Each structure stands twice: as C-alpha cells, then as structure tokens.
C-alpha cells in the first residue's frame, strides 16, 4: 500500500510517486525509511510537513516522500527551512542533506541555527564523502582518506558535528545509523517532538565512493548511548562522549535540554503563525506622525 501512495492524497507522509535514484545499497535508503517511519508514528498530516534540503545525493530525499518539499541550493537548507518555520511555525519543518552540504558549505548556517533554537529537525546523511560530485573529500572525511581531491590522503582533522552542536548550544544532539532504521526512526521522531533545534547526524554509507566508512565499518564499532551510563542532560559528559572515535563509536542521544524556542521568544509570533496574520498598513496612518 505504501508503495503506491500518491503525493497528493496520502493523509500522513508516505512514499511519493518518485522512486529513489540512489545507488543500490546506498545508506540513504535507510534514512528515508526512518523519516517515513518517524512521521507515520507521529501521524502528522502530510500537508503539514515541509522537508527542505540542499544539493547532493542525500538532498534528493524530499522528492521521495509525499509531504511538501523544498530542494534548495547547495548548503542553504537551514536558512530556507528557518524562513519557512518563521513564516508558519505550525508546520513541521525538517531540514536534511549531506555532510558536505551541512557541515562544509553550510557550516556557518549550521552553528547559527543551533544557537537560534528554532524548532527544526536537521537530519544529516553523513557519508564522509561528496557523493553526487563523484567522490571528493568531505569535511567529515577521516585523516588519511584517499579521494579524488586528496589522492595522497586527507590532511585535515575532520569536523565533529556532535561536538560542534554541543558547543553551539543545540538543545537536541543525536547520532544514528542508517543500518539501524528502527533506532534512527526513534531518534528522528524524538527530535521532531523536541521543542527546539534537533540534530540527527546519521552514518549513512556511500557504497560507491567511500570504501572506508562502510556498513561493516560501523557495524563493528557502533554502540548505543541508551544502553550505557550516559546522562543526556550533562553537557560536559556529552562533549566527552563526542570525542570517542575508533574501536568504539557511540550513537544515540548525546544531549538534550529544555530552552525556549526562537518562535516562542519572537514577539511578532505571539499572535499565531505569520502566514495567518493580516498584512498591510490599513488604518495605520498614525505611523506617519513620526516623520512630522
């Protein structure tokens, strides 16, 4: 049934009439499935969901679900999503894309979005490579990784999105794995439910261009924070966990905190979503008094 749900009639978000164009085996299949699962669980009507992405293999995701979507330019998913959320905060706004999109060219927006704490869920399909442009290093590529742009190996320390999120004041910081869509679906659902900015960084292997960080690589290393002694209300502990890399790599919820959202603090939104408020200057002639 899901398979044939059409873009326009599905009451909750399902698959769209466009089949994913990812390579067979691509990690992103697991992510779109997890997003679909999360939105089904939350039973949000499909027309009340807006999924905004940038450019990259991963950023094609909005086309494969039946909600509203905005497939923007490279690196700008977050500001587009932010504008849309401020225009209509009754919408469930999800931003999504790749590691290059979000942590590379979009890195500036990323850190500012987190301090801003708009109620947006940001899902990054982190494959540690530039997929769509056929395999250059990404900001999360590991030191030594040989790619088309680094034939002798990457010589930069990779971005640590979890640490960055914690340092920037994000209020929901998590990491999932495309190979575990159930766990990932829960992280996404909880991120959507969370009031404020939620980061879900996802290990989503690129089977074509990244021969280092494969499904196997992760399967051998990942462990879940949920089963550990980690306290997700402890910022410093979360930062410490974010530094773990190597034989053991944590996934799950690193940190969550309760802080008013931007929408809650914005005076102009007290009267409800902007999109429903009246516009224009009718009857405001007294505004001209300041110019006398």
């Amino acid at each position: 049934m899901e398979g044939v749900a059409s873009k326009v009639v599905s009451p909750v978000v399902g698959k769209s009439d466009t089949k994913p164009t990812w390579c067979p085996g691509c990690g992103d299949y697991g992510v779109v499935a997890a997003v679909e699962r999360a939105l089904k669980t939350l039973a949000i009507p499909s027309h009340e969901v807006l999924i905004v992405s940038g450019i990259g293999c991963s950023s094609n995701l909005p086309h494969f679900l039946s909600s509203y979507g905005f497939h923007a330019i490279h690196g700008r998913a977050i500001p587009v999503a932010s504008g849309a959320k401020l225009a209509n905060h009754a919408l469930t706004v999800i931003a999504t894309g790749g590691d290059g999109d979000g942590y590379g060219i979009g890195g500036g927006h990323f850190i500012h979005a987190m301090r801003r704490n708009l109620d947006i869920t940001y899902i990054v399909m982190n494959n540690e490579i530039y997929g769509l442009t056929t395999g250059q290093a990404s900001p999360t590529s590991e030191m030594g990784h040989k790619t088309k742009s680094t034939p002798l190996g990457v010589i930069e320390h990779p971005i640590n999105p979890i640490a960055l999120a914690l340092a920037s004041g994000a209020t929901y910081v998590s990491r999932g794995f495309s190979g575990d869509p159930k766990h990932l679906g829960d992280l996404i659902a909880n991120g959507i439910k969370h009031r404020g900015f939620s980061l879900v960084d996802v290990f989503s292997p690129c089977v074509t261009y990244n021969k280092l960080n494969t499904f196997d690589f992760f399967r051998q290393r990942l462990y879940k924070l949920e089963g550990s002694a980690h306290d997700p209300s402890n910022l410093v502990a979360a930062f410490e966990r974010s530094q773990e890399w190597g034989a053991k790599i944590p996934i799950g919820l690193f940190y969550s905190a309760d802080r008013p959202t931007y929408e809650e603090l914005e005076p102009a939104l007290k009267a409800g979503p902007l999109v429903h408020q009246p516009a224009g200057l009718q009857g405001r002639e007294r505004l001209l008094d300041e110019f006398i």
Partner: protein
Amino acid sequence: MERSPDLSIRVGGAAGDGIATLGESFARLFTRNGYHAYGHTAYQSVIRGGHVWFHARGSPDRVWSQGDGIDILYAYNEQTAEIHAPYLRKGGVMVHDPEKFQFPADRLPTGTRTIAVPTLQMSRKYTSDPILSGSAAMGACTFLAGFPFDTLAAILQDNFGSKKKDVLEQNLGTAEAGYRFVQERERPIERAFAPNHGAAKLLITGNQAIAMGAVAGGCKFLAQYPMTPASTIMHWMAAHAADLGIVVKQAEDELAAINMAIGASHAGVRAMTATSGGGFSLMVEALGMAGMTETPLVVVNSQRSGPSTGLPTKTEQGDLDLMLGAGQGDFPRAILAPGNVVEAYRQTIEAFRLAEDWQTPILLASDFGLSENLQSADREDFPMDLTPSNLFSSRPRSENGGFRRYAYTPSGVSPRSIPGQKGLNFVAGSDEHDERGHLISDVLVGTPAAVVERRHMMEKRMRKLEGLRSEVPMPMIEGPESAQLTIVAWGSVAGPVRDALAELNSDGIRVNFLPLNCVFPLRVAELGKALVHAQKTLLVEANYTAKLGGLIRKETGIELSHRLLKYDGEPFYPAEIVAKVRRVLKEEVN
C-alpha cells in the same frame, strides 16, 4: 515657470559632534513651517572624528536634491569652515564660535560674512561637553533663517524629550541663548523664509519609505544583514516589528538572509531582504533559485561607491550590470529604480505586487543618496488603503493525478500552493523539473522527452519576462514635449536632474527629461518612441562605464549622444547638469 528662491543651511563638524541631529533639525525647521525640504547627509566610514556634514535645503517649491550653494553655514570646527565656506553664496553667512577658531574675512567669498556666536560659553553654563554648543548655533541659525524659536523648541522637545530631563533643558536653554544672542545683534538673512508657510510636511528617508512601502505591500518578513546604506531599512522595521506583526530577522550573513526570505515566501508570507552591493553579491546564487523555484521575492539593493568595499558612505549607480547578470542562466526578473521617497514607497508596493503576480524575484535599486537623504512629502503621498490578500486562504484547485505547481500556461504563471494547504503537496526544486516539480536533471535528462520538457519549461518561465515587461512603469517624458535635448537618468539621479530642468526651463531652454523608474526589462517600443524625437540626448549617470547607456543601446540600438558621468561618490549638483546641458547645446550652435 518662475522658481522661488530656496534656502540652504549646512552644518559640518566631526563624527560624534551631533552633526546629523543638527542637520535633520534644520530640515525639519522647513517642513514644520510648511516648506518643501531636502536633507543631504555626508558622513564617513568612521564612528568618531573625521569630517561629516549635513545640508538642509528648503523651498516653497518642490525640491528634488541638495541644490547648489549655501546660505547659512554652521562650522562646528575649523575644517568645516575651510571646506565649505567657499560654497557660500551671495548674502550668505557663516556662524562659528571664535573661541573654537578664527576665520579671517578674506577667506570668505565676496558678499558673505561670518557671525560670531559664543556657543561654548553658552553651553558651559550646563556642561563642559562641547557637543551642547551645537544647540546654541542651531538657535542662531534658526533666527537667521527667519524661523521663530517655537518651532525649534518643539523640534528639540521631540529630539530630547525621551532622554533624561536635564538633557532637554540644557538643549533648550543653550538654543534659546544662541537664538536671542543673534536676534539682539542681527536680522535674518536676505533669503530668509517667512514662518508658517503652510501645514507641516513629512520628512522621510528613502529607506524609511521603502520599509513602510514593503509593509503596505504586504511584507511580513524581513531577513537582513546590516550593511550601509541599507541598514536603516532593518532598523525601521525592527522598531515597528512587534507593533506591525512582522518578523525581522538579522541573519548571520547575506546568504542566510536571502535564503530565509525565500523560505518564508515559499511558506506563504511576503518576504524581503535588503543589502548593498557587497551583500547583494552574496545573494546572487539564491536569486537564481528564487527564479527557478518561481518563489516571489523582493530584494532591495541600495548601491554605494564600489568596487568592493569602496566608499561605504558614498553614492554610486555602479551595480546595474551586477543586478542584470545576477545568477547563472536565464530567469525573469525586474529592476525598479525609484527616484525619490514617494516613488520609493509606491514602487516597493509595486515590487511586491509584481513579485507575487509573476512569481519571480523583483529587485529594487536604491542608492546611498535615496536611501539615507531626507525628503519632504505629504501624508497623501503614502496611501495605506491596500489590503494585501492572505495567500494561505486562497488555494488553487486540486487536480486529479497530482498538483501541477509548474503547469504550462500562456502567461507562464502557474497555480501556486502553500505548504499547509491540503492535497496540493509538491516539491519546489532548484534543479530543472517538469510541471509537477519532478526533477528532470537526474534519470531523465538528455532523453528526447526530457530535452523537450526542458525547452518548454525554460520558455514557460521566460514568458513571464514578457509579461513583466508589459507591466513595469512606463517611460514618460517630463517637461516640454519637443525639446532640443532629452536627459535620460535612472534612480535617484532624477533628483538633481529635475532641479536642473526647472532651472533650465525657467531660463527658457527647451530641455526635457526621461526618467527610468524601471531599468529592466525595458519597454523597448515605448522607450524608442520617447527618444525618437530627441535631437540630442544626455545620459546622466553615477558610474564610470555608463551602464544604463549601454543597456539602452543593447536593447534598443539607440546610442545616447552625450554623457555626464560621475564616480567620485558625491551626488550630482543641479548646476553641474545645467552647465553640461549648456555646453552640449552650445556645441550645436557652433
């Protein structure tokens, strides 16, 4: 047409001396007494020190620019006297405080003189801070200009009423001392104005008019990053945001600002961003996305002297090619270029209408001069009766088999749904797409059907450019119908041109003016018609390469015969234009 004599008051000093406040108050003396006024602000990219000045010009007739010459000069410091005294015209006076500096009479133009006012002495009664001395001088100048002290007192009340009580008292006291001091010793200057010429007029900057026009046009969302001379659009909006129910978002950079505005517009709220050339450069990529996704958007580009950081506080019309070329590939856009505050208000409203009706980005070109200078206007100039529709509450028909957001239509405009509207879900994409928004850049592109689809979608979008062309402001000749010379200018340069025209026409010289309020798309046919009878044409433009001239030639084949170009950051003075016209016409006689 006889023109009544105007009256110009200029005040100069260093940044931090309160020069802008003094200057604006002088402009307000005119408007409160029912005169037309123009206030030109000249400052530097520095917060304290240096040299700044403000020029306030009033007249019973409409004035369009700072005009030429000075009647009353208040020199807060010696540098001001040195720089500006040469521009005093006959009967003019310079007010200064000899305790600050001496200025020998032989350094003044003939027919002008100094009036010494012990402003520091007067201010010392209250404070050792010399800034207060400006109020004493203001009192003196007010008298010399012919205005009653009451008007000044009311202005000071407005300026300082909200501050600590003694601030107002000190200013009033010093101002009155200055007024009385001169009243006892002098008479108002020859060009002085009579008080109470008529009902008070408004005094407003281009940026205030743009901001207000945006709200009138339905804007509910402004995302901006500060940049001179566009920042005050955000300041006005921010100050009124809570009251008017507008979200004003200072973004982390211009990339974020324009993309936020696009996101807000996509979600059904009329949205704007504003910046200057450097920031506009950063918006170029997203502008193309608005074009491709057919998202309405208004972008204000208030130009300043380039290239690069250039002269941040000086004017230029150097961004025309930038605005024309912004974005890879082709998509429809329009560039409106208001010439004064009233046009700024109205064309901003119009920009919102065009953006929405044609679902594409509309640029509003301002510049330092229009954005930051003050102009008088009447309440009726700012109609507030428009009721912008609620976009969310009207919805296109649902269709069987999926909503076609980018349906092919004769006009190129397709039905638009808003996220949240049921049954009309679609994905807006920056990649090329089909009528339903499905990508054709991935598994389809290059196949015969997709090649045709691409062609059709390009043609659909570009049809909107022709639609826009038929709706943008019409080029209309001002002044005598048949003339020896037609001046062509765009944007705020229309101001000094109009002043020059008035002078030339009142001298019996048959010159007329074709102001372009829309520089793209040009109404080629009408423009050609307007220019076909011109014996000579003079392009007046504030950039090095005569960009509008090039555009007109490109679009119409017409090469304007003469040029007056300026690229030093200073505004055009009407006298420069008058002189150039006379030179051009003399040529003909020879």
